[in-house]
């Protein structure tokens, strides 16, 4: 949620549940640049909501451990 809120400088409560393509571009960028997690479009195309994004991040963290 905090990562998505950074897009457009929003408060977390202003982040809509549904994730749009621009927010996906932002997520792809942040995950690649800051965390070194390159994501393929297949993984990103499965993200439609904030909850989907949270699940993906959990999976990436678990894989890193």
């Amino acid at each position: 949620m905090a990562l998505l809120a950074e897009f457009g400088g929003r408060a977390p409560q202003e982040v809509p549940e549904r994730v749009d393509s621009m927010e996906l571009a932002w997520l792809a960028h942040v995950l690649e640049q800051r965390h070194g997690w390159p994501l393929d479009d297949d993984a990103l195309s499965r993200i439609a909501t904030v909850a989907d994004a949270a699940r993906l991040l959990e999976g990436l963290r678990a894989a890193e451990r």
Partner: protein
Amino acid sequence: MKDVAAAPANSMGALPQAPSGSLGPEWVDEVLLRGPGGEPCLFFGADDPVTRDGLRRLVQERQAALGAAGLRRGGSAAIRLAPSLELVVQLLACWRAGARAALLDHRLTPFEAERALERLAPQVVVTAEHPVPGGPPRGHYPQRAVLTARPGRPAEGPHALVQLSSGSTGPAKVIGRTAADLVAELDRYARIDGVPRAGERMVSLASPVHVLGLVGGLLHCLHAGVRLAFPERVTARGVLDAVAAGPEPTTLLGVPFHLELLGWHPDPPRLPQLTGMTTGGEPVRAELHEAFVDRYGVRLGCMYGMTEVGVIATDLHGAHRPELTPAPGLGVRAVDGELLVSAARSPYLDDAGAERWADGWLRTRDGGSVDAATGRVLVRGRLDSQVSVGGLKVDLTEVEHTVLALPEVESAVVLHGSVIEAYLVLAPGGTAARVEEQLAGRLAAYKRPRLLHVLGQMPRTATGKPVRERSALAAAVATTAAAASAAASAGSGR
């Protein structure tokens, strides 16, 4: 049509002369496809470049297939494909057949697309065999075309291109442009200082379905001998990789969202071939402009235009921000704070929007002024409810009408803050989830409200109209939440 001699010398043919009427289909070969056969002209990500010979062959093949599907000279087609080589060749093939092509955005819902097709009544519809997968935006998509013949109507008039624009009072405006209109716009581009020239390169992030990416990108590049590249992925890295892929002086074409995206790169590589970027669609905030110029050290130019006319005014070197210089051959004036642009005839094919044109002038619905001494234009913003979402025009009135038309909704107000938001009172039995579901079928994702605020009661003015002030609506949201919380407490206390 402008003086042919005014166009700069390049490897392409001179622009044909035509009166205000139509050009024959040979304009496609003469203006767009002419050039050395082995010369690469289009680049789609990592795919092999498309040469002029290759492009001509593909266009001829698609023209034959369209003919087999029943498309004739004077006929009509609608193309609903994502940005792709297939979109380019289908469009050029329609025009080369002497038919009218309507371009529909691939992001429209099936409901919106069907409504558009009912209105346009094309004889052949070109769609993609498979829908575009979700995910972040891409510069181009794999597309395989499916042609469907329909009992439509032939083109009624000389128009080559038809596009729909969001309607502020209900129905979308149907905008028609003739081949001569498009050629005249190409002539304007050829005469604007700062536009890429023969031997240079453009990396376009703007969709070729809409006027900036179509005429300012695709058609200008084909006409002027500029190599046009579409990046694989529209991320900062993807865009910069596309710039680095060729040694030629390279210009980026996009909308302000792409500036933000490029600004995310913490340490962009030095790319000596990058000469600048041009944006359209909406004005660029001063801090965004400065951040881009600081980070990349190249010029950032701005274009102002509209679907009906194409490019109207530019400041491609960022020399007069926020003012723009009218494009050569176009007149711009301000009347009662609204900008008007010269247009020989109404661009609208039916009654929707017709009142905006009179006596050779088209009302832009943009507020602004024209400096009497310099002739430069200052655009102040929309006078109606149109907003820009990632460079795409969305009319909030159309969104609000769609929300209000749902049986689950009693009243609604739609506003645009950082995203499109709907404040609504549900009808008995309605739920927010059901409203979301219904809207997903009726509005393309970029037009849909991202936030739904359900109110117990709509705040209204003394005359009964819904209040549109954000603070009053936010207070109504808080009141509704407090009432729900109190009801829940009372329920749990029993």
